[in-house]
């Protein structure tokens, strides 16, 4: 899937700029030298909001403006893409009591503010903020808008003005420092549309960083190589920039995304949703790969930092050499890129009501859920359905009640439906706070006078059915031993489970070693497929999620592989005990789509075959097949070429999403013992990567204990 007119050598693996300047910039950012500019506190906006009796949208806009005003322009040594955040947090808009009254009876998603969606960056860059402002004014001047719309538009304009005022101060600072080139760029963008690659990167840096200042998080960057390419292409054609010059700017942009990440909210540091999507197809279905696709991978190979997180859209026809280049990135150990298969994802989105053109424009949310930039106000992760819990309850109740295996499956289906409906009911009461600035970056908000929180073209929800392999293995073990072979009695199994396998070690070993497992046995695979069918049926039974959308089922697990096994932080006891696949209480489940941690698996082929059996036309919310390959699998050219073949096999088999990690178990163990020697060791955790030494111990342990394939 390569366009024909690509320059020769565009798949080169090493950057051609001399890296000394950026090496030191990257190290300074890693060391946090820029954080000395941070103020201790963010402005307190509560008194003025109360004195003026402002409503919610006005408060959001006011706080945004005050935070922008409180930002101090910072120009770090040698920097060419400016913006360093100096305010530490988002000010509260209400006092506790009032907040409770305002939100009582409603469901707030996670922390509250809109998150985990993607703006239409190309659209906003193409217009510039001044044009967005003009659109808002024009809409406001048209008759027929209610108070709410007018208030929204006024708020949006207030946020645009706040951004432009902050940028003016940056321009002024640059000019005072004699940086006339940078000053000129900042006098132009993001108010007016950029015309060069440098201008576009600078504009994007500001527009994107501002979203965080409004309190949002998991702020995606979308199809970077698509919306940025016209600027780079123009520069290259006119000779304004060399390839090396472009790489260097891009590297600086990537580094800049790592400046403020310690201020971003997330379960663990690194879980911040700064993803970019590369490759895929254009609106008309033609291949979208361009020179920037490869350049972004090459530059990420150089920067080797946790942001941005790179995704690559592929198909069975994707050029192997592009996959080889991507494999180089995997070898770095960051867990990028994550692959998604256009031939599976696009038709599934169409089947779920997305227009074909929009479906072809998909990107991913923070981790893996498929969303449409600028057109989706979707809440893709409303929660998890614990498949092990659904299966375990069914097994225990079914065996006690002496019912047959199909009846146990029926109970599992009931348990799943119950949990799906519970999530759907909870999110029918969803309350999304106003988001005037984020609305500026979406299609239709300013045009229609509707805040983003009131919805966009697509308003679906998503959930994830987590730890499917553990659940299927538990059912498969019961079917084989209790029902088919009758070699274990129901009572014996129940007693062993209740006692956490104390005094039942030989049974536990049989369950672990001799039972069918997802990834190496078709019977277990099929049970996993059945479980996903139950999930799909339950989701499809939800006609309307309360916002005119559907509930999309997915295969991710995020932190649930730990929470579902051990309880959420603060829980007194794990929600589930020992399970019939031979897992003791408290042991982890597998993350996303992966065999159970204790299953002896032959390797990646059986795993891909197993997960290719899922009907991704129905299970379309995303969540990758996750595989750890020994880093020896990336040792030389030949091995990397084989990894490229493996990725192509993933696509050929009709799987949906894939995430490969190169892992060296010994390095990880050493990093646990001597964190000081492995400060820059990066590992993939779930939909994101983080510095190994900065992870909480239970996450470290899980990374170390994952299935390792190879050589």
């Amino acid at each position: 899937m390569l366009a024909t007119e690509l320059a020769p050598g565009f798949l080169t693996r090493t950057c051609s700029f001399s890296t000394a300047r950026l090496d030191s910039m990257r190290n300074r950012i890693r060391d946090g030298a820029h954080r000395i500019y941070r103020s201790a506190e963010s402005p307190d906006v509560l008194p003025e909001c109360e004195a003026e009796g402002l409503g919610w949208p006005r408060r959001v806009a006011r706080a945004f403006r005050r935070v922008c005003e409180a930002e101090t322009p910072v120009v770090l040594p040698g920097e060419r893409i400016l913006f360093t955040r100096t305010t530490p947090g988002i000010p509260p808009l209400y006092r506790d009591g009032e907040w409770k009254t305002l939100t009582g009876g409603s469901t707030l998603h996670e922390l509250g503010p809109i998150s985990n969606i993607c703006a239409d960056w190309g659209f906003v860059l193409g217009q510039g903020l001044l044009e967005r402002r003009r659109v808002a004014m024009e809409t406001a001047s048209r008759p027929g808008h209610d108070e709410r719309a007018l208030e929204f538009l006024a708020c949006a304009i207030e946020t645009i003005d706040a951004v432009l005022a902050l940028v003016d101060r940056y321009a002024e600072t640059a000019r005072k420092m004699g940086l006339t080139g940078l000053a000129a760029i900042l006098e132009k963008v993001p108010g007016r549309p950029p015309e060069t690659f440098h201008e576009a990167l600078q504009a994007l840096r500001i527009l994107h960083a501002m979203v965080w200042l409004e309190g949002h998080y998991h702020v995606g960057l979308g199809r970077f190589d698509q919306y940025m390419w016209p600027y780079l292409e123009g520069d290259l054609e006119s000779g304004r920039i060399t390839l090396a010059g472009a790489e260097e700017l891009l590297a600086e942009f990537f580094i800049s995304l790592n400046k403020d990440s310690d201020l971003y909210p997330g379960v663990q540091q690194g879980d911040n949703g700064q993803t970019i999507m590369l490759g895929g197809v254009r609106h008309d279905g033609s291949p979208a790969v361009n020179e920037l696709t490869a350049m972004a991978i090459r530059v990420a190979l150089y920067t080797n930092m946790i942001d941005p997180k790179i995704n690559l859209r592929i198909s069975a026809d994707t050029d192997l050499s592009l996959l080889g280049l991507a494999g180089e990135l995997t070898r770095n150990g960051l867990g990028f890129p994550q692959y998604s298969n256009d031939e599976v994802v696009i038709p599934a989105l169409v089947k779920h009501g997305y227009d074909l053109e929009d479906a072809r424009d998909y990107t991913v949310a923070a981790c893996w859920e498929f969303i449409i930039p600028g057109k989706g106000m979707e809440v893709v992760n409303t929660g998890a359905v614990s498949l092990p819990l659904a299966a375990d309850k069914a097994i225990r109740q079914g065996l006690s009640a002496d019912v047959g295996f199909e009846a146990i499956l029926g109970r599992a289906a009931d348990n799943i439906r119950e949990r799906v409906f519970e999530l759907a009911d909870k999110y029918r009461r969803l309350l999304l706070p106003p988001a005037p600035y984020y609305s500026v970056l979406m299609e239709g908000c300013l045009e229609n006078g509707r805040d983003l929180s009131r919805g966009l073209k697509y308003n679906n929800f998503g959930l994830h059915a987590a730890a499917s392999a553990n659940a299927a293995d538990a059912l498969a073990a019961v079917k084989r031993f209790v029902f088919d072979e009758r070699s274990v009695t129901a009572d014996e199994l129940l007693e062993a489970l209740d006692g956490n396998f104390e005094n039942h070690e030989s049974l536990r070993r049989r369950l672990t070693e001799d039972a069918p497992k997802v990834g190496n046995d078709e019977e277990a695979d099929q049970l996993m497929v059945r479980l996903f069918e139950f999930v799909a049926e339950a989701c499809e039974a939800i006609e309307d999620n309360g916002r005119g959308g559907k509930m999309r089922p997915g295969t991710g697990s995020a932190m649930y592989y730990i929470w579902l096994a051990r309880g959420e932080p603060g829980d007194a006891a794990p929600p589930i005990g020992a399970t019939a696949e031979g897992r003791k209480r408290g042991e982890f489940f597998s993350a996303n789509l992966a065999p159970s941690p204790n299953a002896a698996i032959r390797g990646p082929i059986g795993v891909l075959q197993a997960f290719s059996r899922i009907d991704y036309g129905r299970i379309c919310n995303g969540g990758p097949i996750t595989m750890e390959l020994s880093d020896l699998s990336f040792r030389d050219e030949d091995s990397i070429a084989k990894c490229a073949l493996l990725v192509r096999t993933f696509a050929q088999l009709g799987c949906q999403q894939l995430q490969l990690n190169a892992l060296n178990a010994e390095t990880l163990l050493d990093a646990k013992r001597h964190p000081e020697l492995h400060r820059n060791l990066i590992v993939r955790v779930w939909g994101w990567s983080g510095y190994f030494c900065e992870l909480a111990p239970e996450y470290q342990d899980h990374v170390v204990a994952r299935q390792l394939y190879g050589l």
Partner: protein
Amino acid sequence: MTSGVIHEIREFTTHDGPGVRTTVFLKGCPLRCAWCHNPEGLSPEPQTMRTARGERTVGRRYTAEQVAAILNRQAAILRSNGGGVTFSGGEPLLQAPFVEDIIGRLSNVHVVLDTSGYATESRFRRVAGMSQLVYFDLKLVDREAHIRYTGADNAPILANLRALSSMDVPFVIRVPLVPGVTDTGANLRAIAGIAGSLAGLVRVDLLPYHRAAGGKYAGLGMEFLPSWNEAQPANADVEPFLAAAVPVSVASGDIRLAREPERI
């Protein structure tokens, strides 16, 4: 129908032959190389191995039909990625009839035989003849040294190597480079001398030894007593091969160690 004991079937073994491959590790080996990285592959019977995560069984008995079914399910994938199946060990020829039975049941799959060459000539010829490529381990040419370090005479190995050269099956000679043992100038020259005279040889692979499997030995209740200096880098000298006009390559990284990454 035959059955046999398999230590492990492992998919996507990137260093066991061309393309995407699945390797069948047969359990049991007649040799006792002092540097062996697969102590759990030596005994021909299933064993219990202690690991940091508790005990697990190493090795399982399969019928040829079962193994062929597993492999045939993925044959199309292996084929379309220029790969196939590799039989390795231990020493696969120790269970030659079982291996033949499996190969006979495979549907159009490229087969690599990875062998120490220690087997009767008839067994060797039969299985090699059913393979499309042979990886032939050659450790020491000196007979005394071979007995000392592997516990067995190398005469059958050298005879099988010559037999292989007379067959129509391409082959690669693989030399594990153990510091001061197999990487000596004299041994490498002797191997180059033999290699230079063999028809059908594709190339010689030198596989530098890396420190390895001490922990696994203990887990099996065995002792690992290297008589050489493990810290000393192997002498991956390609000169003798170039002089004999033998194509040669040096593998980077832990080839043998990687066979069995310790599950933690």
